[in-house]
């Protein structure tokens, strides 16, 4: 098999697209992890909800795409807040492992309800700005891929602004650094945890919406996406936002290269091989530092 530089470039381009999605999901994991120390295995379901609610509300109420997307983001954020209120907060004195298992349960529950409401059919979402591929240095990329990459960039910048410049963002960071001292400053831990779940759900929904035109959406896509995003978060250092984004992009590119150069059959395996290698060699992640400790 002859591999040309253009082909490799093509793999990288498509890798960056899926990688962007992983990056957004990893961001969601980090948000909740920083606030609670919990790995929220329902993060993938937020992604599914984003796509499904958009598709369903376009279908049911004939909303334009932007309105349907807005509905999806708002509803998913609400579901994130409800998850915190109904399942996490009542058990807040339980150990982290118990809370993680609660999120696994919540994930199964959300998936089940989605399956009942929307059935097992895949739903398409039309691409936001047509299908005509764009050529960049000999590789082609669809406009939707640019949407995905651009959205990830915008969300990452927005997150950075929030955590660097707003009091609420700094308060959330303070809770992650030292919850004890943050409380003594009058910061309400439970409120920060709520916000982190809300933000994580919103970011997840955004990922699901921009992804849907590429892969179609279905009630059960959340599991695998969640696990991939989790791998990305571990790769970049759990709790490290920038690391998660880097981890996501790297994972996407590795997957695409592996699928292209070795065999597409191993595409999913690559993420988990990477995960195992990282956990064995550098469990704090490639960019993991002191803030990412468990």
């Amino acid at each position, binding site marked *: 098999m002859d591999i040309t530089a253009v082909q490799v470039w093509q793999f990288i381009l498509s890798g960056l697209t899926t990688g962007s999605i992983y990056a957004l999901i990893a961001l969601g994991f980090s948000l909740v992890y920083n606030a609670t120390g919990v790995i929220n295995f329902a993060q993938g379901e937020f992604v599914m909800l984003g796509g499904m609610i958009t598709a369903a509300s376009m279908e049911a109420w004939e909303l334009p795409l932007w309105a349907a997307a807005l509905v999806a983001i708002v509803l998913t954020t609400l579901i994130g807040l409800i998850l915190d209120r109904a399942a996490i907060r009542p058990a807040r004195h339980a150990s982290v492992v118990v809370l993680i298992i609660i999120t696994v349960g919540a994930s199964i529950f959300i998936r089940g309800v989605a399956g009942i409401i929307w059935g097992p059919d895949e739903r398409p979402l039309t691409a936001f700005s047509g299908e005509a591929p764009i050529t960049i240095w000999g590789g082609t990329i669809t406009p939707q891929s640019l949407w995905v990459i651009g959205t990830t960039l915008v969300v990452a910048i927005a997150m950075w602004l929030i955590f660097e410049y707003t009091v609420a963002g*700094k308060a959330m960071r*303070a809770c992650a650094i030292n919850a*004890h001292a*943050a409380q*003594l400053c*009058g910061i*309400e831990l439970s409120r920060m945890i709520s916000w982190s779940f809300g933000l994580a759900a919103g970011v997840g929904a955004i990922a699901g919406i921009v992804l849907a035109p590429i892969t179609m959406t279905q009630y059960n896509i959340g599991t695998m996406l969640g696990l991939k995003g989790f791998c990305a978060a571990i790769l970049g250092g759990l709790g490290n936002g920038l690391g998660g984004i880097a981890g996501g992009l790297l994972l996407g590119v590795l997957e695409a290269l592996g699928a292209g150069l070795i065999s597409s059959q191993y595409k999913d395996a690559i993420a988990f091989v990477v995960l195992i290698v990282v956990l064995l060699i550098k469990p704090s992640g490639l960019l993991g530092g002191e803030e990412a400790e468990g």
Partner: protein
Amino acid sequence: MLRLTSVDASYGRVRALRRISLHVDDGEIVTLIGANGAGKTTTLAVISGLMPAASGTITFGEQTVTNWGPSRLVRAGICHVPEGRQVFGSLSVADNLQLGAYSTGLSRQEIRALMREQFERFPRLEERRTQLAGSLSGGEQQMLALARGLMSRPKLLMLDEPSLGLAPIIAHQVMAEVQKLREEGLTVLLVEQNARAALRIADRGYVIETGRIVLEGSARDLLDNPEVQRAYLGKGYREIWE
């Protein structure tokens, strides 16, 4: 200003505090001395709402504040500067101060004015305002922790081991700062292992042992008390050996 009456608290099944009663009057410096694990930090944690009181009552001013949440107590005017400083290491000095005023609901401008006050008090902090708090020296971190606490505009300041791990000269400065704060009208509850330094600036003191108050009195009396001298001031060994 603050009164604890028969307060009990426990970690799981381990009773940490047994019927603790103490009070701090307006404008006083009161110190709580005792060995490691005697319950000093736990007492502060119960007052600041980090730990529930199993029984007993805590009043602050006119209000009964037993088992209020920490943020409500901060708003009421109780500030707890925790042991080991606990500044937010990966945030800047200015951000740490800003978060100190988190619960006050003050405007941006008022917070800035309050920050100015802290910088006048601790000029070192102004020099380092954009640095990460984690990069400061131990003494500077203690000043930051104190300044962060003052940003909440407290009536009662509770300091947990403010001189721990500091060079004697820095520890001395911290104690001098505490005295200055009292002159400015703050009431102080001071927890210290360095009993001598604490009793020198305090009006009254309590001695706590295994979760119980075993002795109380004016700072003068405690300094002269042979039991206190033997156990906490390191005096009397010579007499024993000679």
